[in-house]
């Protein structure tokens, strides 16, 4: 075992990058859940985003266009979920699962001829001399644009939910859809928009994995990140900044176990690879005592009678 082979600065920088897909997916799901909808299809939307982004990026040669396509792909898939739960009034748990199963199949179908191809490289954000500052440079300023976009989305979500009328309406719909409906808000329309936002974010998160983290396409490559993102929303008590904290924690663990694998620690690789999932369970156990923060109408179907 050689722990000195792990460079702490690079490790922290890598942890931030590892946290980004979880962060993006979780912040999207947070908005969906604050609107009172439980979408268990995050994994399916992520993997669809991953494959859409990959295909478009390879064909256009531009990672940026790839990311846009990934967001669209995730959103289109989430539209299916929106149709099932908002129009056909189907059970949200079952619909979410269906979305994940479907998304996993669809993505491997779409990605068949893209296995083993290298996507175009995403450039680091040109922040000029800032990136050359020792220690802080590589950690804070050395990332690609998506890392900062992820942070921007978190900040934006927080501000919109807390300070704007739109955020207030969204939260009202999530807390008590009957009351919101009585006040004249279009519950289904608002929820559909929230679901679309969640889908787009999950798609971006997925593309971050296939275009930057790995970067190549393999079937089922999101490997449960979507589910971890769902757990993260509970962990964060439905608060945006806590999602950030949680994503860094989980990203950190994922990256750390990868580095430990690389450093040849005496623990078998399989047991190290289990750790992010086990940590998720432990965190869920610790935080489940307090359920009071969950949106009041979470997971309930809304149908305006009469």
């Amino acid at each position, binding site marked *: 075992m050689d722990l000195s082979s792990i460079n702490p600065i690079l490790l922290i920088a890598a942890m931030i990058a590892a946290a980004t897909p979880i962060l993006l997916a979780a912040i999207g799901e947070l908005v969906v859940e604050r609107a009172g909808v439980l979408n268990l299809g995050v994994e399916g939307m992520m993997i669809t985003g991953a494959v859409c982004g990959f295909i478009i990026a390879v064909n256009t040669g531009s990672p940026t266009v790839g990311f846009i396509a990934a967001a669209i792909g995730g959103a289109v898939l989430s539209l299916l979920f929106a149709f099932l739960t908002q129009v056909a009034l*189907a059970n949200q748990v079952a619909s979410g699962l269906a979305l994940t199963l*479907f998304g996993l199949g669809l993505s*491997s*179908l779409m990605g*068949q001829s893209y296995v083993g191809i290298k996507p175009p490289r995403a450039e680091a954000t040109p922040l000029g001399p800032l990136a050359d500052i020792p220690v802080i440079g590589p950690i804070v300023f050395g990332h690609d644009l998506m890392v900062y976009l992820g942070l921007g989305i978190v900040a934006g979500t927080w501000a919109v939910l807390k300070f704007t009328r739109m955020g207030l309406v969204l939260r009202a719909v999530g807390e008590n859809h009957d009351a919101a409906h009585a006040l004249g808000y279009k519950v289904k329309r608002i929820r559909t928009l929230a679901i679309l936002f969640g889908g787009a974010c999950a798609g971006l998160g997925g593309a971050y994995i296939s275009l930057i983290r790995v970067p190549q396409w393999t079937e089922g490559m999101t490997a449960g990140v979507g589910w971890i993102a769902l757990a993260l929303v509970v962990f964060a008590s439905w608060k945006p900044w806590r999602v950030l904290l949680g994503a860094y924690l989980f990203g950190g663990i994922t990256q750390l176990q990868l580095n430990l694998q690389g450093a040849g620690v005496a623990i078998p690789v*399989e047991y190290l690879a289990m750790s992010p999932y086990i940590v*998720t*369970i432990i965190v869920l156990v610790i935080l*489940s005592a307090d359920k009071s923060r969950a949106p009041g109408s979470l997971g309930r179907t809304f149908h305006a009678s009469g």
Partner: protein
Amino acid sequence: MIRIEARPQPSAVMAYATPVLAVVLTMIFGGVLFAALGKDPLQAIATIFWEPLFGEFAFFYRPQLLIKGAPLVLIAIGLALGFRAGIWNIGAEGQYIVGAICGAGAGLAFYPTESVLIFPLMVLAGALGGWAWAMIPAVLKVKFGTNEILVSLMLVYVAEQLLASMSLGLLKNPEGFGFPGSRNLQQYPSAHNAEIISGTGMHWGVVAALIAVIFAYVLLTRHRLGFAIRVTGEAPRAAKFGGVNPGRLVLFCLGMSGLLAGLAGMFEVAGPAGQISIDFNVGYGFTAIIVAFLGRLNPLGIVAAGLLMALTYIGGDIAQSQLGLPAAAIQVFQGMLLFFLLALDVMTNYRVRFGRVEVA
């Protein structure tokens, strides 16, 4: 103006018609998908649904129906009990893997001793393994209120890593020339889950599935516990007032579905699969979710749904070798089925009304 209105009573006709309609719609849209992939849609559909049953080599494929259907039915029966009560065990795949590891482990521990007691012991170990794995989300939910969906799903990934570790380490065949994977149980007569009647595909897993179906049917229609499950799903508050202990129900439903999934894994590893290997699991635990819904969470419906889903697996394999249809296309096909089913379900509980909304 078209609007939908809640039915006073769920429609019984629609409850039976929607799965059939969903299958028909899936065939149509599946055909479109296959056409988009450059295959002849009619031929593809015929290959998937006709060839295994009545084609030239049907004698070979028909037994496969039982072999592939048994684990699906076994797992789906357990899942349906929980789904009926609003308890969502999504981690059957993990319980299936752990059941297989425990079952195979129990058998291999006695290698090469021959005894009639070994196979029953393996069955017991497999059932206990699956049960114990499902007890983790169950106990956490009862004790701490943890979400069972997320915990059971996380445990699938843990079980997959465990499977990899077992096939590379503890259970690795010492005479396997360094290749990953355990000894082949098919070559160990005491542990082999052989066909009961040769050439039919009828192995002990099929028997277990039939027993589970009867057991679940009696439980749901004739037993107090089954009543408690149904009431909890349909009216949780009423169930509480009626004296149903929700914690005990969670333990029972998750435990039972884990046990059945563990059994399915054990029968699979001792029979059709033969050995513990890294890619032992093929997603039966997830497909069983579709089976449970397609079967209307009803034991008899699940048998029909399980056989249909087994058919798509077998037909998918044939279509893959004959028409070059990608394996993933079948996965999409199965996912589509669940979508249509969920979308059409609206007609069971709601009806479509045309005309202007009357102001009360």
